[in-house]
Protein backbone atom coordinates (compact mmCIF):
# COMPACT_ATOMS: atom_id res chain seq x y z
CA UNK A 1 0.00 0.00 0.00
CA UNK A 2 2.83 2.33 0.87
CA UNK A 3 4.86 1.46 -2.22
CA UNK A 4 2.17 0.89 -4.82
CA UNK A 5 -0.75 2.97 -3.56
CA UNK A 6 -2.86 -0.17 -3.60
CA UNK A 7 -5.23 -1.07 -2.03
CA UNK A 8 -6.79 2.31 -1.33
CA UNK A 9 -8.04 1.53 2.17
CA UNK A 10 -6.57 -0.46 5.01
CA UNK A 11 -9.67 -0.77 7.16
CA UNK A 12 -7.88 -1.97 10.25
CA UNK A 13 -4.15 -1.33 10.35
CA UNK A 14 -2.34 -2.24 13.57
CA UNK A 15 0.38 0.32 13.41
CA UNK A 16 2.68 -0.75 16.25
CA UNK A 17 4.50 -3.06 13.88
CA UNK A 18 4.76 -0.62 10.99
CA UNK A 19 5.08 2.64 12.88
CA UNK A 20 8.31 3.85 11.29
CA UNK A 21 7.51 3.37 7.60
CA UNK A 22 3.98 4.62 8.25
CA UNK A 23 5.17 7.82 9.89
CA UNK A 24 7.40 8.51 6.90
CA UNK A 25 4.56 7.83 4.47
CA UNK A 26 2.19 10.06 6.41
CA UNK A 27 4.73 12.85 6.63
CA UNK A 28 5.26 12.65 2.88
CA UNK A 29 1.52 12.72 2.31
CA UNK A 30 1.30 9.35 0.59
CA UNK A 31 -0.95 7.83 3.26
CA UNK A 32 -3.49 9.38 5.59
CA UNK A 33 -5.27 8.20 8.68
CA UNK A 34 -9.04 8.39 8.23
CA UNK A 35 -9.85 7.53 11.81
CA UNK A 36 -7.94 6.52 14.87
CA UNK A 37 -9.37 3.45 16.50
CA UNK A 38 -12.05 2.11 14.12
CA UNK A 39 -12.65 -0.57 16.73
CA UNK A 40 -12.65 0.18 20.43
CA UNK A 41 -11.41 -1.96 23.33
CA UNK A 42 -8.88 -3.81 21.31
CA UNK A 43 -5.49 -4.91 22.29
CA UNK A 44 -3.00 -7.58 23.12
CA UNK A 45 -2.21 -9.07 26.46
CA UNK A 46 -2.21 -12.11 28.69
CA UNK A 47 -5.48 -13.97 29.18
CA UNK A 48 -7.04 -16.69 31.30
CA UNK A 49 -10.33 -18.57 30.77
CA UNK A 50 -13.38 -17.28 32.68
CA UNK A 51 -13.75 -20.44 34.78
CA UNK A 52 -10.18 -20.07 36.02
CA UNK A 53 -10.96 -16.52 37.09
CA UNK A 54 -14.11 -17.73 38.84
CA UNK A 55 -12.45 -20.58 40.65
CA UNK A 56 -9.50 -18.47 41.75
CA UNK A 57 -10.81 -15.00 42.50
CA UNK A 58 -7.51 -14.23 44.20
CA UNK A 59 -5.90 -14.03 40.74
CA UNK A 60 -6.53 -10.39 40.04
CA UNK A 61 -3.46 -9.44 38.06
CA UNK A 62 -0.66 -11.06 36.13
CA UNK A 63 1.51 -10.63 39.22
CA UNK A 64 -0.91 -12.80 41.24
CA UNK A 65 -0.86 -15.48 38.56
CA UNK A 66 2.91 -15.51 38.43
CA UNK A 67 2.97 -16.59 42.09
CA UNK A 68 0.93 -19.69 41.25
CA UNK A 69 2.64 -21.65 38.50
CA UNK A 70 1.20 -24.83 40.05
CA UNK A 71 -2.26 -23.87 38.77
CA UNK A 72 -1.06 -24.00 35.16
CA UNK A 73 1.10 -27.12 35.04
CA UNK A 74 3.18 -27.80 31.95
CA UNK A 75 2.59 -31.28 30.62
CA UNK A 76 6.24 -31.97 29.89
CA UNK A 77 7.38 -30.88 33.32
CA UNK A 78 4.43 -30.65 35.70
CA UNK A 79 6.54 -28.96 38.36
CA UNK A 80 6.58 -25.85 36.17
CA UNK A 81 3.83 -23.51 35.06
CA UNK A 82 3.17 -23.21 31.35
CA UNK A 83 2.86 -19.79 29.79
CA UNK A 84 1.71 -20.00 26.17
CA UNK A 85 3.55 -17.28 24.29
CA UNK A 86 3.26 -15.97 20.80
CA UNK A 87 4.08 -18.12 17.74
CA UNK A 88 7.70 -18.18 16.57
CA UNK A 89 8.52 -15.42 14.17
CA UNK A 90 5.65 -13.07 15.01
CA UNK A 91 6.47 -9.61 16.29
CA UNK A 92 4.74 -10.41 19.56
CA UNK A 93 7.11 -13.32 20.13
CA UNK A 94 9.89 -10.87 20.99
CA UNK A 95 7.69 -8.87 23.35
CA UNK A 96 6.54 -12.02 25.11
CA UNK A 97 10.08 -13.38 25.47
CA UNK A 98 11.28 -10.09 26.92
CA UNK A 99 8.34 -9.71 29.28
CA UNK A 100 8.92 -13.30 30.36
CA UNK A 101 12.43 -12.20 31.27
CA UNK A 102 11.32 -8.89 32.78
CA UNK A 103 8.92 -10.56 35.19
CA UNK A 104 11.62 -13.13 36.06
CA UNK A 105 9.16 -15.87 35.26
CA UNK A 106 11.77 -18.57 34.90
CA UNK A 107 12.84 -17.99 38.49
CA UNK A 108 9.20 -18.12 39.57
CA UNK A 109 8.79 -21.57 38.06
CA UNK A 110 7.42 -20.92 34.57
CA UNK A 111 8.31 -22.16 31.13
CA UNK A 112 7.56 -20.23 27.97
CA UNK A 113 5.81 -22.50 25.49
CA UNK A 114 6.10 -21.59 21.84
CA UNK A 115 2.86 -22.66 20.17
CA UNK A 116 4.56 -22.42 16.78
CA UNK A 117 1.61 -21.08 14.79
CA UNK A 118 -1.78 -19.54 15.20
CA UNK A 119 -3.29 -23.00 14.76
CA UNK A 120 -1.17 -24.19 17.67
CA UNK A 121 -2.09 -21.20 19.83
CA UNK A 122 -5.80 -21.49 19.02
CA UNK A 123 -5.75 -25.25 19.44
CA UNK A 124 -4.21 -25.08 22.88
CA UNK A 125 -6.74 -22.45 23.98
CA UNK A 126 -9.67 -24.44 22.55
CA UNK A 127 -8.49 -27.62 24.21
CA UNK A 128 -8.16 -25.93 27.62
CA UNK A 129 -11.58 -24.31 27.35
CA UNK A 130 -13.37 -27.42 26.14
CA UNK A 131 -11.83 -29.51 28.90
CA UNK A 132 -12.02 -26.94 31.65
CA UNK A 133 -8.23 -26.86 32.14
CA UNK A 134 -6.52 -23.73 33.34
CA UNK A 135 -4.74 -21.83 30.61
CA UNK A 136 -2.50 -18.77 30.73
CA UNK A 137 -1.16 -17.17 27.62
CA UNK A 138 -0.92 -14.45 25.06
CA UNK A 139 -3.76 -13.45 22.73
CA UNK A 140 -5.38 -10.39 21.29
CA UNK A 141 -8.85 -8.92 20.90
CA UNK A 142 -11.30 -8.53 19.33
CA UNK A 143 -11.21 -12.08 18.05
CA UNK A 144 -13.74 -14.86 17.82
CA UNK A 145 -11.59 -16.94 20.18
CA UNK A 146 -11.71 -14.34 22.93
CA UNK A 147 -15.40 -13.63 22.31
CA UNK A 148 -16.47 -17.25 22.13
CA UNK A 149 -14.87 -18.36 25.35
CA UNK A 150 -15.23 -15.07 27.20
CA UNK A 151 -11.51 -15.05 27.95
CA UNK A 152 -10.43 -12.59 30.64
CA UNK A 153 -7.68 -10.10 29.94
CA UNK A 154 -5.49 -9.88 33.03
CA UNK A 155 -4.24 -6.46 34.11
CA UNK A 156 -0.50 -6.72 34.55
CA UNK A 157 -0.46 -5.22 38.02
CA UNK A 158 2.33 -2.90 36.99
CA UNK A 159 1.99 0.32 35.01
CA UNK A 160 3.19 0.73 31.45
CA UNK A 161 6.86 1.41 31.99
CA UNK A 162 7.28 3.97 29.25
CA UNK A 163 7.74 3.70 25.53
CA UNK A 164 11.50 3.82 25.89
CA UNK A 165 11.43 0.51 27.74
CA UNK A 166 8.87 -0.92 25.32
CA UNK A 167 10.02 0.24 21.91
CA UNK A 168 13.69 0.36 22.86
CA UNK A 169 13.84 -3.02 24.56
CA UNK A 170 10.73 -5.18 24.98
CA UNK A 171 9.79 -5.05 21.30
CA UNK A 172 13.34 -5.84 20.17
CA UNK A 173 15.23 -9.09 19.75
CA UNK A 174 16.43 -10.68 22.96
CA UNK A 175 20.07 -9.80 22.37
CA UNK A 176 19.17 -6.13 21.83
CA UNK A 177 17.31 -5.92 25.11
CA UNK A 178 19.67 -6.33 28.04
CA UNK A 179 17.52 -5.05 30.84
CA UNK A 180 13.78 -5.36 30.19
CA UNK A 181 11.60 -3.82 32.90
CA UNK A 182 8.22 -5.24 33.91
CA UNK A 183 5.54 -3.32 32.10
CA UNK A 184 1.94 -3.50 31.08
CA UNK A 185 1.38 -4.21 27.39
CA UNK A 186 1.79 -1.21 25.13
CA UNK A 187 -1.49 0.23 23.91
CA UNK A 188 -2.28 -1.05 20.43
CA UNK A 189 -2.89 1.77 18.08
CA UNK A 190 -5.16 0.93 15.17
CA UNK A 191 -6.06 3.27 12.35
CA UNK A 192 -8.06 3.16 9.20
CA UNK A 193 -5.46 4.26 6.69
CA UNK A 194 -6.17 5.46 3.16
CA UNK A 195 -4.03 6.46 0.23
CA UNK A 196 -3.60 10.03 -0.89
CA UNK A 197 -5.45 9.30 -4.15
CA UNK A 198 -8.43 7.96 -2.19
CA UNK A 199 -8.52 10.97 0.09
CA UNK A 200 -8.57 13.39 -2.82
CA UNK A 201 -11.09 11.53 -4.93
CA UNK A 202 -13.52 10.13 -2.40
CA UNK A 203 -14.35 12.75 0.16
CA UNK A 204 -17.82 11.30 0.85
CA UNK A 205 -16.30 7.97 1.64
CA UNK A 206 -13.74 9.70 3.82
CA UNK A 207 -16.55 11.17 5.95
CA UNK A 208 -17.99 7.69 6.31
CA UNK A 209 -14.66 6.16 7.28
CA UNK A 210 -14.04 8.93 9.81
CA UNK A 211 -17.30 8.12 11.59
CA UNK A 212 -17.05 4.37 11.37
CA UNK A 213 -16.16 3.20 14.88
CA UNK A 214 -17.24 -0.26 15.99
CA UNK A 215 -17.33 -1.00 19.71
CA UNK A 216 -15.11 -3.93 20.60
CA UNK A 217 -17.99 -5.90 22.11
CA UNK A 218 -20.00 -5.62 18.88
CA UNK A 219 -17.01 -6.68 16.82
CA UNK A 220 -16.34 -9.61 19.14
CA UNK A 221 -19.96 -10.75 18.95
CA UNK A 222 -19.92 -10.53 15.15
CA UNK A 223 -16.72 -12.61 14.98
CA UNK A 224 -18.33 -15.23 17.20
CA UNK A 225 -21.39 -15.15 14.95
CA UNK A 226 -19.20 -15.68 11.89
CA UNK A 227 -17.44 -18.61 13.43
CA UNK A 228 -20.50 -20.28 14.86
CA UNK A 229 -22.58 -19.86 11.74
CA UNK A 230 -19.57 -20.52 9.52
CA UNK A 231 -20.60 -17.49 7.55
CA UNK A 232 -18.46 -15.42 5.23
CA UNK A 233 -18.01 -11.66 5.05
CA UNK A 234 -21.18 -10.76 3.08
CA UNK A 235 -23.38 -12.88 5.38
CA UNK A 236 -21.88 -11.32 8.45
CA UNK A 237 -22.28 -7.85 6.97
CA UNK A 238 -25.98 -8.47 6.37
CA UNK A 239 -26.36 -9.75 9.93
CA UNK A 240 -24.53 -6.72 11.26
CA UNK A 241 -26.74 -4.33 9.30
CA UNK A 242 -29.90 -5.87 10.67
CA UNK A 243 -28.62 -6.33 14.20
CA UNK A 244 -26.97 -2.95 14.76
CA UNK A 245 -29.05 -0.45 12.88
CA UNK A 246 -28.55 2.18 15.56
CA UNK A 247 -24.83 1.96 15.00
CA UNK A 248 -24.39 2.19 11.24
CA UNK A 249 -27.25 4.65 10.65
CA UNK A 250 -25.06 7.28 12.28
CA UNK A 251 -22.14 6.64 9.96
CA UNK A 252 -23.89 7.90 6.84
CA UNK A 253 -26.16 10.88 6.09
CA UNK A 254 -29.81 10.33 7.01
CA UNK A 255 -31.07 10.04 3.42
CA UNK A 256 -28.41 7.44 2.55
CA UNK A 257 -29.20 5.55 5.73
CA UNK A 258 -32.87 5.43 4.82
CA UNK A 259 -32.07 4.22 1.31
CA UNK A 260 -29.73 1.51 2.62
CA UNK A 261 -32.31 0.41 5.13
CA UNK A 262 -34.98 0.15 2.47
CA UNK A 263 -32.73 -2.10 0.38
CA UNK A 264 -32.02 -4.57 3.17
Amino acid at each position, binding site marked *: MNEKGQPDVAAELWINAVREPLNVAMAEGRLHSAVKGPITDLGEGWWIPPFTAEKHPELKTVLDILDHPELFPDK*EDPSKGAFIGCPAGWGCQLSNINLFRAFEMEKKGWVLIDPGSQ*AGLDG*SMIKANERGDNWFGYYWAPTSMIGKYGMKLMPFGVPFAGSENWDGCIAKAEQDCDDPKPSAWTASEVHTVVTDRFKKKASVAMDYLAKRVVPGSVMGAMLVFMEEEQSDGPDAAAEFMSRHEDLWMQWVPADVAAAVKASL
Partner: protein
Amino acid sequence: MGFFDKFPAMERADLRDLKKGIDSSFKEFSRSWGESIEAFFDPLFYFLVNFEKLLLSTPWPIIISIVAGLSYWGSRSWKLSAGAAISFLFIGYLGMWDNTMSTVALISVATFICIALGIPIGVAMSKSDRLQSTITPVLDIMQTIPIFVYLLPVVMLLGIGKVPGLIAVCVYAMPPIVRLTNLGLRLVDKEILEAADAFGSNYRQRLFSVQLPLALPNIFAGVNQTIMMALAMVVIASMIGVKGLGVPVLQSIQNQYLALGMMNGLAIVALAIIFDRVSQKYGKRLQRHREGGSDV
Protein backbone atom coordinates in the same frame (compact mmCIF):
# COMPACT_ATOMS: atom_id res chain seq x y z
CA MET B 1 -32.19 -23.86 -18.42
CA GLY B 2 -31.22 -22.62 -14.99
CA PHE B 3 -30.27 -26.14 -14.07
CA PHE B 4 -27.37 -26.17 -16.55
CA ASP B 5 -26.14 -22.66 -15.93
CA LYS B 6 -25.65 -22.93 -12.24
CA PHE B 7 -24.43 -25.99 -10.43
CA PRO B 8 -27.25 -27.43 -8.34
CA ALA B 9 -25.38 -26.88 -5.10
CA MET B 10 -26.68 -27.64 -1.67
CA GLU B 11 -28.75 -24.91 -0.06
CA ARG B 12 -26.53 -22.49 1.84
CA ALA B 13 -28.39 -23.05 5.08
CA ASP B 14 -28.19 -26.84 4.76
CA LEU B 15 -24.53 -26.69 3.95
CA ARG B 16 -23.95 -24.47 6.96
CA ASP B 17 -25.88 -26.84 9.18
CA LEU B 18 -23.86 -29.75 7.85
CA LYS B 19 -20.58 -27.97 8.61
CA LYS B 20 -21.82 -26.85 12.00
CA GLY B 21 -22.97 -30.38 12.75
CA ILE B 22 -19.59 -31.87 11.91
CA ASP B 23 -17.78 -29.24 13.94
CA SER B 24 -19.94 -29.55 17.00
CA SER B 25 -19.90 -33.34 16.96
CA PHE B 26 -16.13 -33.22 16.83
CA LYS B 27 -16.10 -30.86 19.80
CA GLU B 28 -18.47 -33.18 21.61
CA PHE B 29 -16.16 -36.07 20.80
CA SER B 30 -13.07 -34.22 22.00
CA ARG B 31 -14.84 -33.24 25.22
CA SER B 32 -15.86 -36.79 26.06
CA TRP B 33 -12.93 -38.75 24.67
CA GLY B 34 -10.06 -36.27 24.68
CA GLU B 35 -8.77 -37.26 28.05
CA SER B 36 -8.82 -41.00 27.39
CA ILE B 37 -7.13 -40.56 24.02
CA GLU B 38 -4.51 -38.39 25.63
CA ALA B 39 -3.99 -41.03 28.30
CA PHE B 40 -3.57 -43.64 25.56
CA PHE B 41 -0.67 -41.69 24.11
CA ASP B 42 0.84 -40.88 27.50
CA PRO B 43 3.36 -43.74 27.55
CA LEU B 44 4.67 -42.60 24.19
CA PHE B 45 4.72 -39.01 25.42
CA TYR B 46 6.72 -39.82 28.55
CA PHE B 47 9.07 -41.99 26.56
CA LEU B 48 9.73 -39.09 24.19
CA VAL B 49 10.15 -36.60 27.04
CA ASN B 50 12.56 -38.85 28.88
CA PHE B 51 14.47 -39.78 25.74
CA GLU B 52 14.92 -36.10 24.98
CA LYS B 53 16.00 -35.40 28.57
CA LEU B 54 18.48 -38.25 28.36
CA LEU B 55 19.97 -36.90 25.16
CA LEU B 56 20.13 -33.39 26.62
CA SER B 57 21.69 -34.43 29.90
CA THR B 58 24.31 -36.74 28.39
CA PRO B 59 27.64 -34.94 28.07
CA TRP B 60 28.33 -34.00 24.46
CA PRO B 61 31.54 -36.01 23.98
CA ILE B 62 29.59 -39.15 24.83
CA ILE B 63 26.83 -38.30 22.34
CA ILE B 64 29.38 -37.67 19.64
CA SER B 65 31.16 -40.94 20.38
CA ILE B 66 27.83 -42.75 20.23
CA VAL B 67 26.98 -41.07 16.92
CA ALA B 68 30.37 -41.98 15.50
CA GLY B 69 30.14 -45.49 16.91
CA LEU B 70 26.67 -46.08 15.54
CA SER B 71 27.69 -44.76 12.15
CA TYR B 72 30.65 -47.11 12.12
CA TRP B 73 28.54 -50.06 13.26
CA GLY B 74 25.98 -49.33 10.57
CA SER B 75 28.28 -48.52 7.72
CA ARG B 76 31.73 -49.95 8.57
CA SER B 77 33.13 -46.84 7.00
CA TRP B 78 35.61 -44.61 8.84
CA LYS B 79 34.91 -41.77 6.47
CA LEU B 80 31.21 -41.71 7.23
CA SER B 81 31.76 -42.08 10.93
CA ALA B 82 34.23 -39.20 10.99
CA GLY B 83 31.91 -37.09 8.86
CA ALA B 84 29.05 -37.66 11.30
CA ALA B 85 31.24 -36.70 14.27
CA ILE B 86 32.48 -33.57 12.51
CA SER B 87 29.00 -32.40 11.58
CA PHE B 88 27.85 -32.85 15.17
CA LEU B 89 30.87 -30.86 16.36
CA PHE B 90 29.90 -28.09 13.96
CA ILE B 91 26.29 -28.18 15.10
CA GLY B 92 27.36 -27.86 18.71
CA TYR B 93 29.89 -25.14 17.95
CA LEU B 94 27.23 -23.09 16.18
CA GLY B 95 24.97 -23.26 19.22
CA MET B 96 22.35 -25.64 17.88
CA TRP B 97 23.08 -28.57 20.19
CA ASP B 98 19.93 -28.52 22.32
CA ASN B 99 17.59 -28.07 19.39
CA THR B 100 19.40 -30.81 17.49
CA MET B 101 19.01 -33.22 20.39
CA SER B 102 15.27 -32.49 20.54
CA THR B 103 14.98 -33.09 16.82
CA VAL B 104 17.06 -36.29 16.97
CA ALA B 105 14.80 -37.60 19.75
CA LEU B 106 11.63 -36.87 17.80
CA ILE B 107 12.90 -38.09 14.45
CA SER B 108 14.46 -41.31 15.65
CA VAL B 109 11.30 -42.27 17.54
CA ALA B 110 9.13 -41.25 14.57
CA THR B 111 11.25 -43.18 12.08
CA PHE B 112 11.25 -46.20 14.32
CA ILE B 113 7.45 -46.12 14.65
CA CYS B 114 7.00 -45.61 10.92
CA ILE B 115 9.22 -48.57 10.09
CA ALA B 116 7.77 -50.78 12.82
CA LEU B 117 4.23 -50.11 11.61
CA GLY B 118 4.95 -49.59 7.93
CA ILE B 119 6.75 -52.83 7.06
CA PRO B 120 4.05 -55.14 8.49
CA ILE B 121 1.37 -53.09 6.71
CA GLY B 122 3.36 -53.36 3.49
CA VAL B 123 3.73 -57.11 3.95
CA ALA B 124 0.01 -57.50 4.55
CA MET B 125 -0.72 -55.38 1.49
CA SER B 126 1.47 -57.52 -0.72
CA LYS B 127 -0.48 -60.62 0.32
CA SER B 128 -3.91 -59.35 -0.56
CA ASP B 129 -5.03 -57.35 -3.57
CA ARG B 130 -8.13 -56.31 -1.73
CA LEU B 131 -6.17 -54.90 1.18
CA GLN B 132 -3.92 -53.15 -1.30
CA SER B 133 -6.84 -51.45 -2.98
CA THR B 134 -8.15 -50.29 0.42
CA ILE B 135 -4.88 -49.04 1.82
CA THR B 136 -3.55 -47.29 -1.29
CA PRO B 137 -6.15 -44.49 -1.18
CA VAL B 138 -5.48 -44.06 2.54
CA LEU B 139 -1.80 -43.61 1.76
CA ASP B 140 -2.72 -41.13 -0.96
CA ILE B 141 -4.71 -39.14 1.58
CA MET B 142 -1.89 -39.23 4.10
CA GLN B 143 0.56 -37.85 1.58
CA THR B 144 -1.55 -35.16 -0.02
CA ILE B 145 -4.01 -33.81 2.52
CA PRO B 146 -2.93 -30.34 3.64
CA ILE B 147 -1.29 -30.86 6.98
CA PHE B 148 -3.26 -28.34 9.01
CA VAL B 149 -6.53 -29.95 7.97
CA TYR B 150 -5.83 -32.81 10.32
CA LEU B 151 -3.42 -31.06 12.65
CA LEU B 152 -5.97 -28.62 14.07
CA PRO B 153 -8.31 -31.42 15.21
CA VAL B 154 -5.32 -33.33 16.58
CA VAL B 155 -4.20 -30.26 18.51
CA MET B 156 -7.73 -29.71 19.83
CA LEU B 157 -7.73 -33.30 21.01
CA LEU B 158 -4.22 -33.66 22.37
CA GLY B 159 -2.96 -30.13 22.85
CA ILE B 160 0.25 -28.79 21.39
CA GLY B 161 3.56 -30.52 21.76
CA LYS B 162 5.34 -33.73 21.10
CA VAL B 163 2.60 -36.28 20.51
CA PRO B 164 0.70 -34.27 17.89
CA GLY B 165 4.08 -33.51 16.32
CA LEU B 166 4.91 -37.19 16.20
CA ILE B 167 1.54 -37.99 14.67
CA ALA B 168 2.03 -35.32 12.02
CA VAL B 169 5.48 -36.65 11.16
CA CYS B 170 4.31 -40.26 10.99
CA VAL B 171 1.23 -39.54 8.89
CA TYR B 172 3.42 -37.91 6.29
CA ALA B 173 6.51 -40.11 6.50
CA MET B 174 4.99 -43.58 6.74
CA PRO B 175 3.51 -44.02 3.22
CA PRO B 176 6.80 -44.55 1.35
CA ILE B 177 7.91 -47.45 3.50
CA VAL B 178 4.48 -49.09 3.18
CA ARG B 179 4.37 -48.60 -0.57
CA LEU B 180 7.90 -49.76 -1.23
CA THR B 181 7.66 -52.79 1.04
CA ASN B 182 4.54 -53.80 -0.83
CA LEU B 183 6.16 -53.15 -4.19
CA GLY B 184 9.36 -54.97 -3.28
CA LEU B 185 7.53 -58.07 -2.12
CA ARG B 186 5.34 -58.11 -5.21
CA LEU B 187 8.37 -57.84 -7.48
CA VAL B 188 9.98 -60.98 -6.08
CA ASP B 189 10.23 -63.48 -8.91
CA LYS B 190 7.33 -65.94 -8.94
CA GLU B 191 9.66 -68.74 -9.94
CA ILE B 192 11.83 -68.24 -6.90
CA LEU B 193 8.71 -68.47 -4.73
CA GLU B 194 7.75 -71.66 -6.52
CA ALA B 195 11.18 -73.02 -5.83
CA ALA B 196 10.85 -72.08 -2.17
CA ASP B 197 7.52 -73.86 -2.04
CA ALA B 198 8.98 -76.85 -3.80
CA PHE B 199 11.65 -77.12 -1.13
CA GLY B 200 8.85 -77.29 1.38
CA SER B 201 9.38 -73.96 3.13
CA ASN B 202 6.59 -72.87 5.40
CA TYR B 203 5.01 -69.40 5.44
CA ARG B 204 7.51 -67.91 7.86
CA GLN B 205 10.52 -69.30 6.05
CA ARG B 206 9.14 -68.14 2.74
CA LEU B 207 8.57 -64.60 4.04
CA PHE B 208 11.66 -64.08 6.16
CA SER B 209 14.24 -66.08 4.25
CA VAL B 210 13.15 -65.57 0.68
CA GLN B 211 10.78 -62.67 0.07
CA LEU B 212 12.02 -60.04 2.51
CA PRO B 213 15.72 -60.49 1.67
CA LEU B 214 14.95 -60.23 -2.02
CA ALA B 215 12.81 -57.18 -1.45
CA LEU B 216 15.47 -55.42 0.64
CA PRO B 217 16.62 -52.93 -2.01
CA ASN B 218 13.09 -51.61 -2.30
CA ILE B 219 12.49 -51.69 1.42
CA PHE B 220 15.62 -49.69 2.06
CA ALA B 221 14.61 -47.19 -0.59
CA GLY B 222 11.42 -46.87 1.50
CA VAL B 223 13.41 -46.41 4.70
CA ASN B 224 15.43 -43.70 3.01
CA GLN B 225 12.30 -41.87 1.86
CA THR B 226 10.72 -42.20 5.28
CA ILE B 227 13.74 -40.67 6.98
CA MET B 228 13.93 -37.84 4.48
CA MET B 229 10.24 -37.04 4.79
CA ALA B 230 10.34 -37.24 8.59
CA LEU B 231 13.12 -34.68 8.65
CA ALA B 232 11.29 -32.52 6.15
CA MET B 233 8.42 -32.40 8.64
CA VAL B 234 10.56 -30.96 11.43
CA VAL B 235 9.54 -27.41 10.58
CA ILE B 236 5.85 -28.32 10.34
CA ALA B 237 6.05 -30.11 13.68
CA SER B 238 7.47 -27.00 15.28
CA MET B 239 4.38 -25.17 14.08
CA ILE B 240 2.43 -27.06 16.70
CA GLY B 241 4.82 -26.41 19.50
CA VAL B 242 7.46 -29.11 19.10
CA LYS B 243 10.86 -27.92 20.23
CA GLY B 244 13.78 -28.49 17.92
CA LEU B 245 15.55 -27.21 14.84
CA GLY B 246 12.25 -26.20 13.27
CA VAL B 247 11.63 -23.37 15.75
CA PRO B 248 14.55 -21.18 14.69
CA VAL B 249 13.71 -21.91 11.06
CA LEU B 250 10.18 -20.61 11.59
CA GLN B 251 11.55 -17.61 13.39
CA SER B 252 13.99 -16.87 10.60
CA ILE B 253 11.38 -17.25 7.87
CA GLN B 254 9.21 -14.54 9.32
CA ASN B 255 11.99 -12.24 10.45
CA GLN B 256 14.28 -12.69 7.46
CA TYR B 257 17.19 -13.94 9.58
CA LEU B 258 18.96 -15.53 6.63
CA ALA B 259 21.94 -16.93 8.50
CA LEU B 260 19.88 -18.41 11.33
CA GLY B 261 17.55 -20.13 8.89
CA MET B 262 20.40 -21.42 6.77
CA MET B 263 22.33 -22.84 9.72
CA ASN B 264 19.37 -24.64 11.21
CA GLY B 265 18.20 -25.80 7.82
CA LEU B 266 21.63 -27.24 7.09
CA ALA B 267 21.67 -28.93 10.49
CA ILE B 268 18.45 -30.70 9.48
CA VAL B 269 20.10 -31.71 6.20
CA ALA B 270 23.16 -33.00 8.06
CA LEU B 271 20.97 -35.13 10.31
CA ALA B 272 19.11 -36.46 7.28
CA ILE B 273 22.31 -37.40 5.51
CA ILE B 274 23.78 -39.13 8.54
CA PHE B 275 20.57 -41.08 9.26
CA ASP B 276 20.24 -42.00 5.62
CA ARG B 277 23.82 -43.00 4.80
CA VAL B 278 24.09 -45.15 7.90
CA SER B 279 20.81 -46.95 7.21
CA GLN B 280 21.64 -47.39 3.51
CA LYS B 281 25.10 -48.77 4.21
CA TYR B 282 23.55 -51.06 6.77
CA GLY B 283 21.01 -52.16 4.17
CA LYS B 284 23.79 -52.81 1.66
CA ARG B 285 25.62 -54.95 4.16
CA LEU B 286 22.48 -56.99 4.62
CA GLN B 287 22.44 -57.53 0.86
CA ARG B 288 26.03 -58.60 0.40
CA HIS B 289 24.77 -61.79 -1.20
CA ARG B 290 24.01 -59.73 -4.29
CA GLU B 291 27.67 -58.99 -4.93
CA GLY B 292 29.04 -62.32 -6.03
CA GLY B 293 27.42 -64.52 -3.46
CA SER B 294 30.58 -66.34 -2.37
CA ASP B 295 30.11 -65.53 1.31
CA VAL B 296 26.45 -66.45 1.61
